[in-house]
């Protein structure tokens, strides 16, 4: 790892953005809800269910269905996006389901659905990870049976250096040398990977380094999620 490498905002390569914070119960109407903030990214998630799945042909008689919907508020980014789903949000919704499904136990809920709605209020890269973190907490908060909760963060590579938690500038404007690689990942507390994507180019060795870096960071994120769930207002 090149020691001279300087990140634009002064962070060390393995340093995530701060502050990170979390809170549950942000949507009173929902069965469970949570907010997760990391740096300038703010995600909220609300859970409804388990409830009857409509339409009927989507029902799974074997076990319950986890249905995630990820979306960005139009004004959460600098260049306004049209309200409503698009190709990007459709893919991230599915990725989020895959990231959560290994820990969510819905075998006792055949033909039912658990809906998870995730919205970005403010976006500054790393939104899918923030969304997954909020969703994991909201599912727990809703009393859904789970083996574990999951924690998510992106590692990546800037030029030749493996770094943690790319911000907006690093993710989309950094062009030096080998440019920027973004690798969002999700881990269980016991170190199982439930989600990984790579966007850029990276060697096998550096990918392993990035995975270890994200794995370490997820331990800290997990503590933040756990603490938020344990704080109960009187």
């Amino acid at each position, binding site marked *: 790892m090149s020691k001279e490498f300087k990140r634009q905002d002064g962070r060390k390569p393995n340093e995530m953005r701060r502050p990170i914070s979390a809170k549950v119960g942000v949507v009173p109407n929902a*069965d*469970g809800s949570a907010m997760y903030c990391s740096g300038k990214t703010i995600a909220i998630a609300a859970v409804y*269910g*388990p*409830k*009857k799945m409509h339409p009927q042909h989507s029902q799974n008689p074997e076990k319950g269905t986890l249905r995630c919907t990820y979306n960005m508020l139009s004004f959460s980014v600098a260049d306004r996006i049209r309200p409503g789903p698009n190709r990007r949000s459709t893919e991230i919704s599915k990725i989020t389901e895959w990231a959560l499904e290994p*820990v969510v*136990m819905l075998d006792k*809920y055949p033909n*039912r659905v658990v809906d998870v709605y995730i919205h970005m209020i403010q976006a500054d890269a790393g939104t899918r990870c923030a969304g997954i973190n909020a969703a994991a907490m909201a599912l*727990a*908060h*809703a*009393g*859904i*049976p*789970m*083996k*574990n*909760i999951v924690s998510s963060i992106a590692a990546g590579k800037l030029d030749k250096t493996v770094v943690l938690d790319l911000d907006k500038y690093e993710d989309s404007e950094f062009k030096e040398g080998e440019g920027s690689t973004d690798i969002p990942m999700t881990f*269980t*507390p016991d170190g199982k990977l439930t989600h990984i994507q790579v966007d850029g180019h990276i060697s096998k060795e550096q990918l392993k380094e990035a995975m270890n870096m994200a794995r370490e960071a997820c331990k800290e994120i997990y503590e933040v*999620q*756990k603490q938020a*769930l*344990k704080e*109960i207002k*009187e």
Partner: protein
Amino acid sequence: MTERKIVIPGEMIVKGEDYLPGEGTEKRGDEVVALRYGLAEEVKKLVKVIPLSGVYQPRRGNIIIGKVERITFNGWLIDIGAHDCAFLSLTEVPRYVNKDGLEELMDLGHMVVAKIWNMNKRGIDLSIKSRGLGKIDEGIIIEVNPNKVPRVIGKEGSMINLIKDETKCNITVGQNGLIWIQGDKVENELYAKKAILFVTEKSFMDGLTEELKKWFKENKNE
């Protein structure tokens, strides 16, 4: 483990070969681990998690309050806030009802206190044959988190009896979180509603019955 603590899914509750995993937990090696969010409790080495949140989980024998969703040729489909609709058959009504006149006994949107007498793969079966069950004619219905129903009722009904006495209302608490309050005056019903919401908001507090007594002294029904 002595006191109850809040645990999250996947969290180790206790370690030791002699502990048994109860509801909401599983054994992983020699650890008992939580499988849902709630309060961990251990009684005689049996460890379980008491849920703090989540939709209503129906159980046989529960008294619930529901709303007539649909009328079929031989009974009523009742929404009880669970993930399944429940069915009240004509045969589970304590008096004779003409098959052509089901809606005369209970029409769409009507509320009913009923008991879950059977549950199977097809669904939930209700009955209104026992005392205190049947259609609700008057009063208000409020909704609380179904996981807080045990607190609203209190030990051997101590909490709910205190509320009934202080507010002079008849109160029926459905295990599904719907509560029927009926008094002589709307004021009394709303007074009872406020008291119940006080209990659900402070449900983590120790000595809640005493707190509620204090609340009644400080908040007289004008």
